[in-house]
């Protein structure tokens, strides 16, 4: 694989003191949804992402976990500059990319790619694998014609564990897991440093999920990739993430090293999320102390004051209903936004 750069650095992260690959500071995304008031003079917004900050170091995977309406997908899209950013900055490789546009934005695509959730809808059914995986090379002028991309596409397919003769076939000839591999090959075509994985395995069958997760891990080891891995529960992220951030109603509520999150969750929402994942062992499942949250995620147009989780929190106090808790260190390298831990 001579044309693919192999990682010179070990996949073991030595991030202390190192410059992060991506820094997100105070990211806020709002979508207008209409107007209210008698004269329509009050504009309404969905507060999708509100003052979110984190960083991702080279070669590491940050798991971003949250349920519907938590803002996890919007955060991923904001980093890829696909949604308008209301406030905050995104710094990638030391450059502020919050407002790049035009050709600079197109150029940024060489360094930042996306793996989609839906392996069926994310591949154009009318294009052959060659055109799908080779398209990035054509549009960025790496090759002039798609025919010249052929060898490179075969390399990429082999890299993701597909037979090289897949180049001339259409996506429908492949199973869900294989299609997801095609999507990964497309994301890798431009040799990006950073890939946003937007729930890449949640649409796949259980027995296939492991294959794709393991592939992503192997690729990270070989190519030194950095991932933002978005997921809707805490089960799969455990196996791929180095650090995990938990989002609720547009806010990051907790962020820490992987094992720390699982062994020592500080935020009551993280604790509930952990206990909500059912364990396939009836004896254990029945004896396990489970915390079941009442209620639902709040309306993002009109989020509750104070801590956004207080409406469902089993331990909320008066203070939580008025003052939003800051995301602050609870232990070394472990931030949580809760007044009560």
């Amino acid at each position, binding site marked *: 694989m001579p044309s693919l750069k192999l990682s010179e650095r070990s996949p073991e992260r030595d991030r202390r003191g190192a410059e992060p690959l991506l820094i997100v500071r105070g990211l806020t995304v709002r979508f207008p949804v209409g107007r209210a008031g008698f004269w329509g003079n009050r504009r309404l917004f969905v507060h999708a992402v509100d003052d979110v900050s984190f960083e991702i170091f080279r070669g590491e995977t940050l798991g971003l976990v949250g349920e519907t309406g938590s803002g996890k997908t919007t955060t991923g899209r904001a980093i890829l500059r696909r949604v308008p950013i209301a406030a905050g900055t995104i710094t990638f490789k030391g450059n502020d990319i919050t407002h790049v546009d035009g050709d600079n934005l197109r150029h940024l*695509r060489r360094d930042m790619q996306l793996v989609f959730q839906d392996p069926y809808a994310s*591949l154009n059914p009318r294009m052959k694998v060659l055109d799908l995986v080779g398209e990035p090379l054509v*549009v960025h002028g790496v090759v002039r014609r798609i025919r010249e991309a052929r060898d490179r596409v075969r390399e990429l397919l082999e890299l993701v564990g597909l037979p090289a003769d897949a180049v001339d076939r259409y996506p429908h000839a492949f199973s869900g897991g294989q299609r997801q591999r095609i999507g990964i090959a497309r994301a890798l075509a431009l040799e990006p440093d950073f890939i946003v994985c937007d729930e890449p395995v949640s649409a796949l069958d259980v027995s296939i999920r492991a294959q794709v997760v393991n592939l992503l891990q192997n690729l990270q080891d070989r190519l030194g990739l950095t991932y933002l891995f978005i997921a809707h529960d805490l089960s799969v992220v455990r196996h791929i993430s180095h650090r995990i951030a938990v989002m609720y109603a547009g806010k990051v509520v907790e962020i820490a090293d992987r094992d720390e999150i699982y062994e020592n969750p500080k935020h009551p929402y993280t604790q509930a999320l952990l206990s909500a994942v059912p364990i396939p062992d009836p004896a254990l499942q029945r004896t396990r102390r489970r915390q079941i949250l009442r209620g639902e995620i709040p309306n993002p147009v009109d989020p509750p004051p104070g801590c956004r989780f207080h409406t469902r929190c089993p331990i909320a106090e008066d203070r939580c209903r008025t003052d939003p808790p800051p995301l602050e260190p609870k232990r070394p390298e472990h931030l949580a936004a809760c007044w009560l831990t």
Partner: protein
Amino acid sequence: MSLPSPHEVEEAQREEVLTSGRPYEVLRALRGSLRELVRDKAGLFGVLVVLALVFVAIFAPWLAPHDPSRQSLSDRLVPPFWESGGSFTHVLGTDNLGRDVLSRIIYGARVSLLVGLSVVLLAGVEGTTLGLISGYRGGRVDAWIMGAVDTQVAFPGLLLALVILSVVSPSATSIIIVLALNGWMVYARMARGVVLSVKEMPYVEAAEIVGCRPRRVVARHILPNLASPLLTLAILEFARIVLAEAALSFLGRGIQPPQVSWGLMVAEGRAYIFRAWWLVTFPGAAIAITVLGINLLASWLRVAADPQEREKRFAATARTGSVA
């Protein structure tokens, strides 16, 4: 999550072959469709009518027994051959100037086909382009284009055509231009609708994230989705245009003598309707059968393009065994 069932996969395969496959694959895919067409009588009728129209229009000089504009005062108002006084020289009789009705119908097919095809092509290209821009760009451009569509749709099209054609001199060319200016809106609306739904597809987002410029996104990823609905719409529009041309010619603001058109023939025969019924009946029937055939073709195509519908038909006719 739902995996596509095997037959959906099969369908997708066929559709792709039809839109982008190698020649022999296209033939193989078409053969399957033909086998089903033979079973669908209405669809078969539609296809045959349209094929006949095209055939007649192309080979008119060889098929027509007489020169359509040659007058013969001695042979005026000869009835069709089966009526008394009729003969096989003029199978469908002659008109008040002694011109052969069959030959005129055959040449009239040329006008219908020419006007229909040209208008569909011009209006289709114009409407689709504007619809694509409108849907993909959105915002102010969208508002402008759709405003124009709404304004023009609100105005009766045939009336507008009549007004314009009473100012400029009517001819085949001017009819084509006027009807095309009148008919682009449906294409624009349809194209915009498809773009709006396809634009949200993850594979379009994938193309944008990979770094495709807007023009490539539209041409490679959005436009192909238009092929099937556009074809059905164009065929229906074709039928409408055939009627519109006939109506304009009938009203005297369309095709002008000595050129031949079915609508013109009906208009000219109107005065003799009680003495020579064949002057109105045969061109009228030609219009009716053509329009009916085109509509049947369109409705067959719609079913043929719907995999679920086809699969259901297949299952209903196949030997499905019995409950044990």
